[in-house]
């Protein structure tokens, strides 16, 4: 047993983070918010970097990595709030031409919702035709949504990858909260010196670390109950993390300019796309 990242995994995570911070840093993120169309150049670059193909065997142009590696990469995408139907395209790699390379944008129906329908080349899952899909005024400025009547359960691999994104987002809002708490002064000292703020941040970290153990373990074991646990804990870490981050930021956290709302809204979206909480709870209950 060695339940730690290998050197290769560490390098993959660091490389992904570096790629994304260069290619989709804060300026790009805010530009995407102002003009929320799918950036196909970025998509192609992600494909070239192997983001969609990493699970494919080398014979199919991939690198033959497993779900554990996918989870690390999706965690980074969650941190960076990369927009687009990443999960669906990843899952389509190998099945849909061009998905692995980033040439084809694939979306999928998850829980009666279709993210990025208009931008996608291929739609999978759900009803045969999405011609009756109804556009939603999506709460998340970075995720256009349509709804379709048919709402099958989300496939477990998608659940796991969304959980990985939630984990990344939770880690990022923790970092944002801590940075703000170190820098912002009130009553003559950094707000992070106040025990109330300190303890909010400490509980955020605890939620992140617990969710991390659950998500990584689910990727390794691929056990349905472990996936369900990962989903619930990662959703909680992301949603409550964003809210606590907002609270630590005070009034500034309530502005459109602060990034924290982007994390919260996306966390809400992922929580729906990743599968219903009640279903995950019943999976866990049944396994008891």
């Amino acid at each position, binding site marked *: 047993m060695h339940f730690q990242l290998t050197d290769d995994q560490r390098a993959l995570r660091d490389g992904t983070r570096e790629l994304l911070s260069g290619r989709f840093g804060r300026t790009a993120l805010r530009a995407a918010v102002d003009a929320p169309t799918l950036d196909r150049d970025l998509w192609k670059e992600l494909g070239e970097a192997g983001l969609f193909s990493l699970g494919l065997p080398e014979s199919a142009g991939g690198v033959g990595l497993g779900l554990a590696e996918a989870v690390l990469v999706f965690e980074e995408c969650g941190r960076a709030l990369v927009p687009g139907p990443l999960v669906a395209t990843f899952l389509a790699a190998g099945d849909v031409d061009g998905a692995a390379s980033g040439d084809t944008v694939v979306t999928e129906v998850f829980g009666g919702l279709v993210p990025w329908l208009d931008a996608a080349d291929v739609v999978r899952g759900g009803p045969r035709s999405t011609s009756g899909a109804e556009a939603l005024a*999506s709460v998340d400025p970075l995720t256009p949504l349509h709804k379709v009547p048919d709402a099958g359960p989300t496939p477990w691999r998608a659940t796991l990858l969304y959980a990985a994104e939630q984990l990344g987002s939770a880690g990022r809002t923790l970092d944002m909260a801590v940075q703000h708490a170190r820098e912002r002064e009130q009553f003559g000292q950094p707000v992070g010196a106040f025990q109330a703020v300190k303890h909010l941040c400490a509980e955020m970290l605890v939620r992140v670390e617990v969710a991390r153990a659950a998500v990584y373990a689910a990727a390794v074991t691929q056990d349905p109950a472990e996936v369900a646990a990962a989903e619930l804990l990662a959703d909680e870490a992301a949603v409550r993390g964003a809210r606590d981050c907002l609270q630590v930021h005070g009034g500034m956290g*309530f*502005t459109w300019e602060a990034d*924290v709302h982007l994390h919260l809204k996306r966390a809400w*979206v992922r929580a729906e796309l990743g599968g219903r909480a*009640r279903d995950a709870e019943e999976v866990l209950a049944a396994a008891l």
Partner: protein
Amino acid sequence: MDLTYTDEEEEFRARLREWLGGVLPALPPKPSPTDWPGRRAYDTGWQRRLYDAGYGDVHWDASPTTRLIFLEETEEAGAPYVGANFVGLLHAGPTIAAEGTDAQRARWLTPILRGDEVWCQGFSEPDAGSDLASLRTKAVRDGDEYVISGSKIWTSHAEVADWCELLVRTDATAAKHRGISWLAMPMDAPGITVRPLRTLAGSTEFAEMFLDEVRVPVGNRVGDENDGWRVTMVTLSFERGTAFVGEVVACRRVLGELAAHARKNGRWDDAVLRRELALLSAEFRALWRLTQWNVSEAQATGGVPGVGGSVFKLRYSHARQRLYDVAAEVLGGAGALDAAQDWTLDRLSSLSYTIAAGTSQIQRNIVAERILGLPKSPKGGR
């Protein structure tokens, strides 16, 4: 412990209800949220109607119980909110009434009550945050004028206000609470720039305000120079007793709507969700009773509310957030993510409740120190 109303109070309620029944259908249509002149006209028009019907001063002169009935009835009838009249009626007006000179009262009060003039609030500053008293907007005396420079934030209705109740630092050398003065600043004075501030809900009901050597007559100062903090605190606590009456009534209505919606879409059969709705029902029932308790106490003590407002705000702000989280569960799936749903926007705006007007952390300090008498932390322990 009496929860029945006196005959007089019941008569007031009946009269008001009848009047509302007559006047509301004749109101003009609600303006769009981004139409600031339209919103001003709508809100001040409503205040003028209230004034003409004898309800204009209900926030000032009526007993706390009468005010409670007024807020309960107008909310239940779906009457317009206080809107653009908020600062005038509930902050600046009461401050001027309590602390102003006869001339100041004569100049400013009636226009507020008649809906002729709109006020905005220039208290918060970007660098001050929760530590309101650390504000830095500077007013330098030049003859019989103050010359003011600095910036304010979270100013509602600044675009269409006639006046701004402004807190400025008139003595930079004094302790932070001791060098502040309260001024009435005309919003057409040169040097004022207003810039809308977008909230995370995408709305622009707040603004930033930049002041560049704005000149305000010394005669516009209410209270003594450097006594502005005390002047302000009187008003802020004055407002607490009944501040949330309408909102609690509204939350109870929303809760009923959620239950009806859940019964229709089948989520009612989910025992976990039903339990959440039940607990919220207990919560808002109790908050309504706590409101009546606080109002009765204010009535008994001559309108001076205690720190009970902090107790109420602490619990209410979290209950309101839970309410709209549960609303998202009731809507479920697509509905929970649909920004075209009122409940989604309310969910977003509820996020400010644990921050605005004193964060929950600050409220807990107040409750612990002022009600429970726990020791003030030394510098660093707040």
